[in-house]
């Protein structure tokens, strides 16, 4: 697949359809993949990667890239296409200036899960018929593929590309995922248990802002957390819980716009399950206002941005938590 993608990208660059390509390139280590922009065939040949570690969602980079002169080619996995649609709906990208090639989605591998098996000194990771061969400086180790996949891939919501100009590989379907299982578990806790759960998770936060910076819904020109006029920027917290409010504010901020791409939890260096906050909102919106998937299209009105006369009064009809 990687080879075919490079070939197609080179063609589109050569015939002038696009001026740039957005994809992934290798970092320090084989599993250390980052999004990258390529402008020449040479760069593509040298650096372009598409493998079991290319989990990063590149849609957010299109906010900037699509406003530059000339078209940009974007290779998007199914979950990335939802983000792009949402950005198109919010006029954050210039969709006409993007050439989207849909490429197959995961499951992608999570290096942390491999390392958690006690494997160190990793030099390369190969997937042979869903057995992972981990080459290390001490020799080669093996483990089953599905034991090391990303959490976000384990509860994948869709293998369908909701927007593309061209498709490589086969098209999939929207899946009946188990993504709300953990949310339900949290809902069934007592409020004290739930509070303790979130305190123990959120107190790990080091405010590196990685979740915000990677989030495709967080594209404000001037983030409230960076704006001295907003009143919540650089305010010395009275206690550590106030700092945790950052995540709750952010979850409210992306409510109804989050496509559940899972990038926030993927990039969190402290492994906080941030996606659960967003999923709770998605689940509530689904149950209160009918099924809604942000990014599934570019025209529908988001339930939180629309008023209909039969809208429920959430506080009245919705039983919050179970005590």
């Amino acid at each position, binding site marked *: 697949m990687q080879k075919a993608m490079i070939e197609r990208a080179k063609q589109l660059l050569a015939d002038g359809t696009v001026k740039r390509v957005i994809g992934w390139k290798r970092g320090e280590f084989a599993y250390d993949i980052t999004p990258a922009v390529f402008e020449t065939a040479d760069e593509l040949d040298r650096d372009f990667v598409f493998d079991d570690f290319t989990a990063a969602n590149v849609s957010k980079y299109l906010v900037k890239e699509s406003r530059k002169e000339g078209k940009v080619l974007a290779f998007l996995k199914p979950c990335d296409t939802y983000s792009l649609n949402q950005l198109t709906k919010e006029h954050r990208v210039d969709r006409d200036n993007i050439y989207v090639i849909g490429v197959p989605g995961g499951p992608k591998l999570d290096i942390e899960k491999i390392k958690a098996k006690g494997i160190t000194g990793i030099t390369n990771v190969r997937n042979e018929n869903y057995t992972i061969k981990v080459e290390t400086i001490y020799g080669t180790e093996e483990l089953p593929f599905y034991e090391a996949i990303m959490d976000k891939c384990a509860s994948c919501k869709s293998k369908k590309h909701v927007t593309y100009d061209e498709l490589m590989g086969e098209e999939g379907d929207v899946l009946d995922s188990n993504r709300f299982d953990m949310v339900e578990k949290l809902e069934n806790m007592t409020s004290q248990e739930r509070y303790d759960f979130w305190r123990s998770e959120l107190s790990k936060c080091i405010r590196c802002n990685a979740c915000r910076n990677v989030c495709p819904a967080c594209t404000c020109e001037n983030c409230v957390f960076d704006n001295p006029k907003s009143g919540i920027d650089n305010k010395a917290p009275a206690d550590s819980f106030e700092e945790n409010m950052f995540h709750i504010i952010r979850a409210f901020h992306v409510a109804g716009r989050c496509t559940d791409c899972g990038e926030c939890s993927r990039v969190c260096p402290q492994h906080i399950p941030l996606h659960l906050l967003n999923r709770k909102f998605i689940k509530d919106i689904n149950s209160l206002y009918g099924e809604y998937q942000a990014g599934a299209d570019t025209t529908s009105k988001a339930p939180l*941005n629309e008023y209909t006369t039969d809208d429920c009064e959430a506080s009245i009809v919705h039983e919050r938590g179970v005590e």
Partner: protein
Amino acid sequence: MQRIGVFVCHCGTNIAATVDVKAVAEALGHEPGVVISQDYQYMCSESGQNLVKNAIKEHKLTGIVICSCSPRMHENTFRKAAAAAGLNPYLVEIANIREQCSWIHKDIATATEKAVILGRAAVAKVHLNAPLTAGESPVVKRALVIGGGIAGIQTALDIAEAGFDVDIVEKKPTIGGKMAQIDKTFPTLDCAACILTPKMVEASQNEHITIHSFSEVTEVKGFVGNFTVKIKKKARFVDETKCTGCGLCTEKCPMKKVPNEFNMGLDNRSAVYIPFAQAVPKVATIDPNYCMMLKSGKCGVCSKVCSVGAIDYKQQDRFIEQQYGAIVVATGFDPIKLDQYDEFAYNQCPDVVTSLELERLMNAAGPNGGTLLRPSDKSHPHTIVFVQCVGSRCDDSKGKPYCSKICCMYTAKHAMLIREKYPDTEVYVFYIDVRTPGKNFDEFYRRAVEQYNVHYIKGMVGKVTPKSDGKIDVQASDLLANEQLHINADMVVLAAAIEPDKTARPLATMLTTQMDTNDFFTEAHPKLRPVESATAGIFLSGACQGPKDIPETVAQASAAAAKAIGLLCKNSITCNPCVAHSDELMCNGCSSCEKVCPYGAITYIDKEFRMPDRTTKVRRVASVNPAVCQGCGACTVACPSGAMDLNGFSNRQIMAEVDAICK
């Protein structure tokens, strides 16, 4: 540095009885920026206002806080006072320590503490107030009246009389409403049609009045002085401009088995019909549920007999859009459905009728040509029982909690008319109370009892049972004699409660007006603003606001017209300067605000921005039209980036208030 004045009102004992006003003034005097803090007996009085004005001048105040009643009461008073003393009126903040504090608390200590907190929040807010200047917006000199009953007709006539154009939108094929169905009117017993039809004709002939019959309001946009309303003209399959109302089609129509709603289903009409002889407009309407041509394509008789070619089977619903300065709601009432009242056998026995059905049975244009006959066998009834309060003054879920107000009087009227015309008929009226306040009303009721010997019995009917011989057994209790009664009746008449028309609820949503729990429109003030809704430019006429008889309805209809005329007379109205604006540097151009704006005040523009590196960048940003914005604040909540803000209620001001309360 801000120089803020705080003025604490006693409101007689309204506030001072539960709030230690001196302590409040003292406490607020220590707030940052406060240079003077005073209390006074009645701050809204002339001398109270002078106190404020003098303090503004003497202490060179930059903002004032009035701790008093709700801003709905006196905000305007103090804004004007401030303006008179040279302070921008929008530098005035009201802390509501009456409705939200003294009236709802009993304990002086807690009420005083809360009053201080409310005052402190207002001081925190006024620190961030900016002077604002109100603009003006033009008034469209045309009114819309929704509903063409006696209320709507009277309102329209009065507005037209003042020289303004009025449109009446009526959902039925003719105007006239419930009054057209009534036989005689109390307390004078004159014929309803005789006094109503001249008004209907007057409305149709008035050059300022346009009647949209068989039409509905489907969409309302805009605001006071400038509403845009979409009206659906339902297809009547007859060209209104050609039809002469000759009635030949209704005679020749072969489909004659359609229940006649004008006669409450007591007789039949044809599929193409004119509701009644004096209908306005006198135009035929084809009922698509029964017309054989429309249902199966086989017939076409009406089109053949129509000499002017008015029949149009292909007619579609049409939509028209019109601008209005004022809207008057006159949607009226309906009797409740009696399906749930099995004890009165309404669904089992045709001789158990509602009062409105009795009106038709007694009317000359009714099913029996004015002779009162039993619907079942067309015989003369000799014993008639009236049951009052069927569904009125109920505490169960079947009925209504309120008094329907008109039933006592119309029942006295019915009883009297029957005794007058058929002296051999015995009439019984079962009542809880007889309520007859009103000019000449009690005299009227006493005439029924004393002169016409109607049997008024205090007590409720327990059960009505149709018997095999055609008679009806009425089982009731006489509370004064303390005995059970069985009356062998020929007819039973139920005074069904009245409720607001079912179309009122969706209309209230369109108009953003409030309703009470019974779906009656809520007036802006129950005593002092009875014909205005709380939404500017929307007025209330007739029974849509509460149960009313005809004299009251007409009085209120004229009052609503006077209010509408008062608005239409103005060339422009002062706008609210508390409108939204967007910080273009923060705006993402995401369109969230545009989607939630109920007034269509937000558009998007592509604007060029200078970047720090001397380049320029074109960005899509929101732009608010201040003349259209009504300051509801929906956009400020929807805006994900915090770019939208509301003048006078900025995010910073609200956060400052919250901080002050939580301090």
